[in-house]
């Protein structure tokens, strides 16, 4: 959920609205903001499932250190979505282990 009005911060500098896909679903966000923030605002909590125990992980540190938020972005795995700026038309997918679901099932 986005903060519409804040008692101390007058504005949140945002770029223009852009469209991107998350696991095939179309979502909107602001150009330049971290992908993870756009996902969080849209209610997405799970970014990936772990390799060994297939457990869900999401944003933890939000500053690019813990690597729990990594997803497949435009086909590349292990992209830290909390520090990667959103671009128009980005294809964002849930990561399973190190790859997309199709690869994991093979």
């Amino acid at each position, binding site marked *: 959920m986005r903060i519409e009005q804040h008692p101390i911060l007058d504005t949140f500098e945002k770029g223009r609205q852009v469209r991107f896909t998350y696991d095939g679903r179309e979502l909107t966000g602001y150009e330049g903001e971290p992908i993870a923030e756009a996902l969080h605002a849209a209610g997405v909590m799970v970014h990936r499932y772990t390799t060994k125990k297939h457990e869900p992980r999401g*944003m933890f540190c939000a500053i690019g250190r813990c690597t729990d938020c990594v997803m497949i972005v435009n086909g590349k795995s292990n992209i830290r979505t909390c520090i990667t700026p959103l671009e128009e038309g980005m294809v964002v997918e849930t990561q399973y282990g190190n790859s997309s679901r199709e690869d994991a099932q093979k």
Partner: protein
Amino acid sequence: MIKHYDLIVVGAGPAGLSAAIKAANCGMHVIVFDENQRPGGQLFKQIHKFFGSKEHKAKIRGIRIGEELLAEAEKAGVEVSLNSIVLGLYNLKGVSVMRNNQVEHFRGENVIIATGASENVVPFEGWTTPGVIGAGAAQTMMNLHGVMPGKRILMVGTGNVGLVVSFQLLQAGCEVAAVIDAAPRVGGYGVHAAKVARTGVPFYLSHTVVKAEGGDHVTGVTIAEVDSHFKPIPGTEKHFDVDTVCMAVGLSPMSQLTRMAGCKMIDNGGAVPEKNEYGETSIPGVFVAGDVAGIEEASSAMITGRIAALGAAGRSGFISDAEFTKQYEACVNSLNQLRQGMFCKANKGRTDILTTDEGYPLSMSLLTKGYMTEEELAKFTNLNAHQTGVHPVIECTQNIPCNPCQEACKFGCISVGTNITNLPGVVAESKCTGCGMCVANCPGQAIFLVNEDTGDGFATITLPYEFLPTPQAGEKGTALNRSGAAVCEAEVVSVRTNKSFDHTMLLTIKVPKAYAAEARFYKPEKEGK
């Protein structure tokens, strides 16, 4: 090709920027590398007003201090290279940096490592579930990106970070179910705890998280009381429906670059390089400043940054011995003012402090529940002179380095003294005009203007208010006491705003005079955002 600089600074937070500005002003050719998109380190997440004194930028919000630093850096001609990840620090003061999708090499005559600290974590069952986040993550989401971390949060940790972030969560429109800490005492400033407690958030000291529940994301959390070995006591479990668990359990210096370069390391709340009084490590020309040298505050970081820059400038001949000594001593004086009082490093973790420096008994309720009782407050005879008419009431009962209240009052009503760690005192003979500058300027939001009897059976209280929706004159709501319990009906008399208050509203409410000493917060009738 290796590019040479007189000084390379790693980290564009308060320490790094302050160091770079000082060095540039001494004539050094400086570059600052920062891995982030924006400079300022943690400063731009700190939307609260800082403590200290004028020279430490007290009563100014962290975000404004960040903006000032950036402007100063630009004016001094400091080169700040963002999105630049320092990959390694080599022992001849060489630095390799990844930027613009390639690797570049630099060498500094001097290097200042100001990489700050990273958040600690405390594992518990379910801690890997999405929805369990660090306190810094909550700040990043809400203060930098305008996204609510969650709807209802449990905060773990009552150090300053936990308390400050809890308040910021409330300001962002989130609910805070509770603040807990395994320790028996609140670790941060009492005034930070009081701000949170008076909104109704309960504190559970000597409690730990047992389990965070939820499959794909957090749906609830169970906490339990702990014994003297910090083990949960069966039968004391309490459950909260929350969607977020926030961890504020301390910081550790990010000193990997100095370890890599071969600096001699010691333990100071984490591995830190051994350093001399100018921040120079065992490798000549490699300095550390800010949290990476030892966890303190942003105010201290700015000073240790300047000291390291002076060290580098002195080492490389950019400053005369006389000028160096003069500036260095000024920095040390400023730093020592901050390193005093019950929260200073030397006193960290002590549970045996029972009185203030002046001999007043510390409020145990404040330390264990986050709010003071009236009886405890009454013992601080210096904080309320009970004059007729409007007069200040200062609920600041711990020795912390801070004095904006003294500077705020143009009529001499408040006195702290030369030692800024002193408790403030209300000057009984003074004449309060009710201007409210003290209320607006107190970084701890601990000052109230009270008229105990307006003559019609009522009392008025002017309190600092930083929430939305903005109350309207004439509206009715509820007055809450220090523990956040509703005590009586309150009518809004006025809401004053002023550019110099920087978003702190002065809210004046009218309550039945019997509640003049109790009413300390206002809750609007309709729960709006």
